[in-house]
């Protein structure tokens, strides 16, 4: 009892905490707390007469409409899983080699288009979007199994040819990968999509779809609040968890993983201990590219693939990894969760006082929050200072 009493801060301690220097932190904590309270309790649906105020949102508060809240939570979780798959590849490369692989988005895009070509060829309906009933599990897996090794091979060539000899010069490597991304993105527009229906225009980087296998096209009854949720999205969550588990097992239970973690901690020492650090780098880069390919196949099935997404997914990966804290898979997961939740909840729960405000500003709100997180914790949520 006295131990507990000893932990309650005394008046002087609280007073000394509440200084001017802490003001920004306190403001930030206050804002976050307010956001929680708003979403959980304060939000209201529009009144019957159409009147709106700052509390009006599309769905109302969580206590008022728990099923919508649950659906949006699940949306955020599943989107976070997709972000995690792609960003974990980026985090692996960044954490180990301190290489900002700005071509990560371009590899994503290339994988998506290659997978589309393969799936189209397997299905014999050239250029027409497939319905889920036309796609079997095998016809979804094979595109992945073909696209991923191609991307991994290209990644290996880029790493060995362009990045290996200037290890340590971070800005130079970032610029080199930018150049690679510009070239690859332009070539993708020049050569994809190739499988189009007769009379349609080839190439140009138009939007094309991959399709999930047919059995994912149903709803799962969650028995909570009467919520029926899409099995395909839950599938993304499952894949994301498997990727996370697989990476964790690989990094923490295998020898190669141990070498990678050692390299992340202290590259020079690891090399001095006789470990072939160059080979470890190559393996990490290749795995990173493979994860980008997996993420592309997953998300292209969920939405679509088109030119321009390379920039978007590079930005997503950068945000997730930096916010979460570089160098750790756990950090990538945390960053993905934060980013996905903020983006989705901003889109759903910002006040909607009318068509002009405010949900369409969700992207601006998300990035302002990202900037604030970065300014408060420059090393990311779970990064190590310095």
């Amino acid at each position, binding site marked *: 009892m006295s131990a507990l009493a000893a932990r309650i801060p005394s008046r002087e301690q609280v007073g000394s905490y509440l200084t001017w220097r802490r003001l920004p932190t306190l403001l930030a904590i206050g804002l976050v707390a307010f956001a929680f309270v708003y979403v959980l309790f304060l939000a209201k649906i529009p009144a019957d007469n159409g009147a709106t105020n700052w509390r009006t949102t*599309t*769905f109302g508060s969580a206590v008022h409409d728990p099923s*919508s809240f649950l*659906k*949006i939570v699940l*949306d955020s979780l599943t*989107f976070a899983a997709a972000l995690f798959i792609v960003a974990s590849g980026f985090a692996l490369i960044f954490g180990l080699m301190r290489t900002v692989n700005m071509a990560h988005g371009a590899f994503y895009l290339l994988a998506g288009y290659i997978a589309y070509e393969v799936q189209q060829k397997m299905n014999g309906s050239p*250029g*027409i*979007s497939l*319905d889920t009933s036309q796609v079997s599990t095998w016809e979804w897996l094979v595109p992945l199994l073909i696209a991923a090794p191609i991307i991994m091979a290209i990644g290996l060539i880029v790493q060995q040819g362009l990045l290996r000899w200037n290890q340590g010069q971070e800005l130079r490597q970032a610029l080199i990968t930018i150049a690679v991304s510009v070239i690859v993105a332009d070539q993708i*527009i020049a050569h994809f999509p190739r499988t*189009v*229906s007769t*009379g*349609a*225009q080839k*190439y*140009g*980087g*138009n*939007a*094309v*779809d991959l399709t999930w296998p047919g059995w994912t*096209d149903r*709803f799962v009854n969650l028995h909570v609040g009467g919520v029926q949720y*899409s099995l*395909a*999205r839950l599938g993304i969550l499952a894949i994301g968890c498997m990727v996370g588990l697989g990476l964790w097992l690989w990094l923490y239970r295998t020898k190669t993983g141990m070498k990678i973690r050692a390299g992340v901690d202290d590259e020079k020492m690891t090399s001095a201990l006789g470990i072939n650090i160059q080979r470890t780098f190559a393996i990490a880069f290749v795995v990173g590219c493979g994860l980008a390919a997996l993420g592309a196949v997953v*998300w292209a099935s*969920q*939405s*679509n693939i*088109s030119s*321009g*997404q390379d920039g*978007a*997914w590079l930005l*997503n990966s950068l945000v997730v990894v930096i916010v979460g804290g570089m160098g750790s898979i756990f950090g990538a997961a945390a960053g993905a969760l934060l980013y996905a939740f903020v*983006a*989705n909840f901003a*889109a*759903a729960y910002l006040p*909607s006082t*009318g*068509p*002009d405000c405010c*949900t*369409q500003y*969700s*992207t601006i709100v998300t990035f302002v929050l990202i900037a604030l997180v970065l300014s408060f914790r420059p090393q990311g949520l779970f990064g190590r200072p310095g």
Partner: protein
Amino acid sequence: MKKYKLRSWKSAAVVAVAVTAFAVWATSSLAASHAATVKVAIMTDCKGAFGFGYELDIGGAQAAFAQYAHGKPTNKAKPSAGMTNISVNGTPVQIVGYGCGNDTVPVAVTETKRLMEKLGADVMVGPLSGDEAVYVANYAKAHPTKTFIIGTAGSEDPTMQIHPANLFRYHGDGAQWNAGVGEIAYKKLGWKKAAIIVDDYSFGWTSAAGMILDFCAVGGNITKRVFPPLNTTDYAPWVRQLPPPTQVDGYFSAIGGTGTSAMLKAYEQQYGKLDPNKWIGNLFFGFLGADKTIAPKFVGAYIGGTGTGPGLKTAQAKAYEAVIKKWYGPAKLNPADLFVANYYNAAWALVQGLAKSGGAVGTALQAALPTKLKEGYAVSRGGYAYLDSRRQAIQDQYQLQLVKNADGSVGPQTVAYVPAVDQSFGGLVKPTDKPYGRTVPSCKKVVTPWQGKIKVVKNGVITSQVYK
């Protein structure tokens, strides 16, 4: 490493001479041309979202030059290979260059300046996209001696709010393209309440405006407007904001090419299979590749048109389609494609203007450009599209339905004819109004000029039956 040092003055002199020579070469690469030659630039996109419009636009424009100005295509399978021998009543016309935009303003700036200033074009046929056209309209205002005939840009501002005296548009804007589809939703499909999901940018708002104006005019009510930002990765939270199918009779969509299938997949994952009677899309549901990605899910759905009537069997339409086939058959241009048709009409108007002005450009040409054009798919008022007081076309519109063709493919088919749609929707939209946006237009019950006059089109024939 090299060990020689530059002998400062001599080497500097060499460098200076080289630079001057290069400068003289570069600046003299402007070929001197005949004073009487009319220089035309065709401004289009070759990258970005509408990059594939390049050959279509150039093909359409050059087909008109070939048909009416003795032009000879260099390569009938590839319009951008060029065209020679164009002359209008003895005045030679030279195509000085093809602009290559990417749908954004900065590239439009450099391309416009390159075409009009470096290559010295007197007339521009183009541009292709809405935002580029806003820049071109402002540029036109600053350069009154040059003439600009818009290609296929669907933005409202160039002719409604900016309307410079030297800018002409012989086709409808994005709102005009959707005129009538709202009325069909109300009368044929029985929608009373609808929600609309719109790309949060200028073309999205303009396209949505056409649907909203018409639907509300006839008595419908738009209960919710959702605006996902451009380049949204995950459409799920936006689709969630739409009212569920139990609360509305239908949904309008003005989501563009890169997001359409993503948004629809998100919808399917929330509410199950798509019902074609509960969705009406803009052109992005049927054109620009969507007939292969979106349309298969939506057989039977109505979609907004683009001012062309695919499959229309009037003599005028058939004659127009024959012209396109004659000059660029091997290039497989689809005459009903808005890119082909609108650039064709723009170039044909230019030829007529030059014929009337005797080869003069500048203000003389602007006064001579035709105020009415016998466009391929025009039917009303003697088969002409007319220009209004702001040099914007009053054009017949055609609304479409996605149908399964005999060979199993799915594509748009003309099912409705909306006569003489003007940009102001019969006075509803005024130049002093704010441009189309999230709250503009509001939902008002009024009478549009074509209300109750939308005719059913069956198998390419305009029947006398009206949508009731």
